[in-house]
């Protein structure tokens, strides 16, 4: 629409201004709301702590999932060496699912790290700006007439106020993000509790609800690839099977009944 002129920046500016306390004299707000400033800085500190907590929780899930991936891979190999392709497939599907979750966790942890660094940076900047304001105010008072000083102090106060509002906005966004992640992490823990990443690949647990969901969720072609790779490694490719198991294969491996 012609003539609107920088609509996005206009809107976001009014948003920031809305976060600012509207006072007749902005310097009064800054000067007399020392308590408020301390509260804000305290909140930022708490916000940083929240981000760190969320990150730790996600990192714990990461390491659990990594263990699962290794375990499921081993289980798939075992199943395959016992000619249980059905079980191997189930294990690989679970592995695929765990790997997809891992990728999303990596991304979330990286996001939280950025957030953490940003909040630390903003907290320092705000502290420094508030300090500067206190110093500057005294200098201005000494240098200018009362009327001029008031104008200059007001201007500086508006700048600091904007910084406070921006820190508030950064906090709000960080909180929203960590809440979202917490919800997702909670959902994953539930899934885990429901057995999606169950330790034991119990024989005969072929067709339960979770497996059906996994069939839908996982990429079949990736599972097929994995399976083919594993077969090749175990010498069970489509070609003639050499009837020989890798060293360290389970003793219980069924004897190969193929003609020598």
């Amino acid at each position: 629409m012609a003539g609107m002129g920088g609509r996005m920046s206009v809107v976001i500016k009014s948003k920031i201004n809305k976060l600012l306390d509207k006072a007749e004299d902005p310097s009064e707000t800054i000067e007399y709301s020392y308590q408020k400033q301390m509260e804000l800085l305290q909140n930022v500190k708490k916000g940083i702590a929240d981000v760190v907590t969320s990150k730790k929780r996600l990192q714990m899930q990461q390491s659990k999932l990594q263990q699962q991936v290794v375990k499921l891979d081993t289980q798939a190999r075992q199943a395959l060496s016992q000619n249980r392709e059905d079980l191997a497939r189930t294990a690989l599907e679970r592995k695929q699912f765990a790997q997809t979750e891992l990728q999303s966790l990596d991304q979330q942890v990286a996001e939280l790290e950025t957030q953490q660094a940003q909040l630390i940076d903003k907290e320092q900047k705000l502290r420094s700006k508030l300090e500067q304001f206190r110093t500057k105010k005294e200098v201005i008072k000494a240098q200018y007439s009362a009327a001029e000083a008031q104008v200059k102090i007001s201007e500086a106060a508006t700048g600091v106020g904007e910084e406070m509002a921006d820190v508030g906005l950064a906090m709000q966004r960080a909180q929203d993000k960590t809440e979202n992640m917490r919800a997702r992490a909670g959902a994953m823990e539930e899934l885990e509790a429901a057995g999606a990443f169950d330790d034991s690949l119990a024989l005969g647990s072929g067709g339960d609800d979770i497996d059906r969901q996994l069939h839908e969720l996982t990429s079949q072609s990736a599972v097929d690839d994995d399976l083919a790779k594993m077969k090749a490694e175990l010498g069970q490719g489509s070609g003639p099977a050499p009837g020989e198991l890798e060293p360290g294969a389970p003793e219980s491996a069924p004897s190969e009944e193929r003609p020598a």
Partner: protein
Amino acid sequence: MIVRIATEGQFHLPDEDAARLNELDNQTVEAVEAGDEDRFAQLFEEMLELVRRDGTALGDDELEESDVILPPPDTTLEEAAHDFTGEGLIPD
């Protein structure tokens, strides 16, 4: 001209960049209205890059009000649609 990238920081930006910034701003809003996610991401990124590249960060001792404030860099199309179109538009 002083430009703030919300949640990131303030920059001194040469006045010559004002027209380009304004143009990008309007194009970004058009992309939001069209619901064009790729175009929105591309234009918004271009805007942020312009400010980061041509601008110099304000020092901690510079207590200035911004002339222009850009949305946070991680703004999604969904958020932008809420803020910059229809009901989200704050009347001035």
